[in-house]
């Protein structure tokens, strides 16, 4: 195992990764922007380094400065968390070139999955089902022609995209033309590439993903699925495992496909294969994309398996044997739900930063809170609005729901806007309570 690791991130995920490092006796170095000088991830770290001004481009996304911080502190490895530089193949390469260990898959695997169009082709070749779709389209006319061929509704997507940015489902040609132009602008701005493609849109589907772990010997394990169908703006707000919409037979086929997907790119470390599952009970599923990093919602998998995914990432990167037994994977036990506590209003989901005047988080049996903030901290407008992840475990789904309701009632955040009331509502919502929901749930709640 490493003696020291630099965590190239902020907020709850930096705090969470630092926690595992320290449990393993690994010195954890934090990096931060000027705006995050007193942030929680800096306070819990063993050492911290200022990167630069508040805008991410001048701090958390500045490869040169992050590498400089690693050299100055003499760390052996860099853990990227998620977001920022986590899926940046150039960063992964430069980390390795600097003589450091990259806690993640090889840059080639990141690149293979980073281009969504190329990834679709690679997955189809590996025998993983993909939804009907197109290559990148040069203009709105080409998009209109392609959509007519695939059939409406279609989803407009950025080829280099992620996080739902630029994505839109459209029902007809006028909407498609508008969405195409919007997606190009956003893709150029957020991802540096304007390439946009189309995919058949499944209006009644669940978003289900499989956690995989690629071991140093090349084997790939499937460690469970997560249902991420509760979304607003194509971004997840609540996740659970096991998925109420996945039968044992479907689970087995999805796990096999996810392993094939990861093997096709010689994957090492933790990754996630995202799929759409039509809610028609057909037993079909379609590959969406692979996230070549730790996933935001990884804690629900940890809660039902007892695995520490960050520890397994570090072990794979260090060339150590895994803590889990690859030949005897733990049977998932019970049910876990994650609720993403965002600094945004619960009705329109508009963000609202501010100083946290009151922060009381629930605790107790079956409750885990991964927080990036505490009372007295200020939520700034520079970064994404995730404040904390409230995760609950129960012996079965009804028990987890009941525990989640009590935990939400006991969570108090004052100062910034906060979406906690959405979860009080969600946990009573009949579709969610029954488990029959799909990705349109939040839109229906807010219609």
């Amino acid at each position, binding site marked *: 195992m490493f003696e020291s690791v630099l965590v190239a991130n902020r907020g709850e995920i930096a705090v969470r990764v630092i926690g595992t490092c320290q449990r393993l006796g690994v010195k954890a170095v934090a990096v931060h922007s000027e705006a995050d000088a007193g942030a929680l991830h800096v306070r819990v770290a063993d050492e911290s380094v200022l990167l630069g001004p508040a805008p991410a481009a001048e701090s958390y996304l500045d490869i040169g400065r992050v590498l400089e911080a690693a050299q100055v502190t003499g760390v052996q490895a860099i853990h990227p968390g998620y977001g920022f530089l986590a899926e940046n193949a150039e960063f992964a390469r430069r980390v390795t070139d600097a003589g450091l260990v990259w806690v993640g898959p090889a840059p080639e695997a990141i690149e293979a999955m980073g281009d969504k169009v190329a990834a679709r082709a690679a997955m189809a070749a590996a025998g993983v089902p993909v939804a009907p779709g197109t290559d990148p389209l040069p203009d709105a006319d080409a998009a209109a022609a392609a959509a007519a061929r695939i059939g409406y509704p279609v989803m407009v997507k950025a080829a280099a995209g992620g*996080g739902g940015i630029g994505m839109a489902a459209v029902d007809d040609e006028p909407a498609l033309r508008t969405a195409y132009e919007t997606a190009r602008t956003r893709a150029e701005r957020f991802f540096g590439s304007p390439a946009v493609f189309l995919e058949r849109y499944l209006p009644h589907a669940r978003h289900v993903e499989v956690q995989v772990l690629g071991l140093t010997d090349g084997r790939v394990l499937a460690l469970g699925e997560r249902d991420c169908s509760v979304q607003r703006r194509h971004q997840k707000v609540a996740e659970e495992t096991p998925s109420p919409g996945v039968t044992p037979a479907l689970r087995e086929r999805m796990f096999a496909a996810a392993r094939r997907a990861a093997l096709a790119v010689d994957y090492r470390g933790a990754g996630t294969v995202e799929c759409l599952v039509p809610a028609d009970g057909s037993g079909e599923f379609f590959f969406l994309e692979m996230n070549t990093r730790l996933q935001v919602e990884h804690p629900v998998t940890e809660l039902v398996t007892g695995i520490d995914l960050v520890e397994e990432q570090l072990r794979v990167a260090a060339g150590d044997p895994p803590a889990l037994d690859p030949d005897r994977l733990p049977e998932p036990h019970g049910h876990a739900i994650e609720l993403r506590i965002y*600094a945004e209003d619960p009705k329109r989901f*508009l*963000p*609202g930063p501010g100083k946290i005047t009151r922060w009381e988080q629930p605790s107790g049996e079956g409750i885990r809170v991964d927080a990036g903030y505490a009372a007295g901290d200020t939520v700034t407008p520079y970064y994404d609005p995730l404040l904390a992840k409230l995760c609950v475990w129960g012996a079965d789904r009804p028990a987890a729901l009941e525990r989640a309701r009590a935990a939400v009632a006991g969570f108090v955040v004052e100062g910034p806007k906060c979406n906690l009331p959405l979860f009080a509502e969600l946990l009573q919502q009949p579709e969610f309570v029954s488990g029959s929901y799909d990705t349109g749930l939040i839109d229906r709640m807010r219609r």
Partner: protein
Amino acid sequence: MADEIRAEMVANVWKVVAATGDRVDDGDTLVILESMKMEIPVLAESSGVVAEIAVNEGDVVQEGDLIARVE
């Protein structure tokens, strides 16, 4: 009768879409703010003529700051 349109949150001004003197309809985008990795369009709340755009691209606005006036 002028409509004062104010910022609902702390944000950066990403794009100024409308200009003083433009004729706008209810729901037209005047300015696009950015906060917490999200683009937030600021919309006209009535039809009329833009009397003032009180912000420039790159500005930081506080909650309650004037963004535009539509007459």
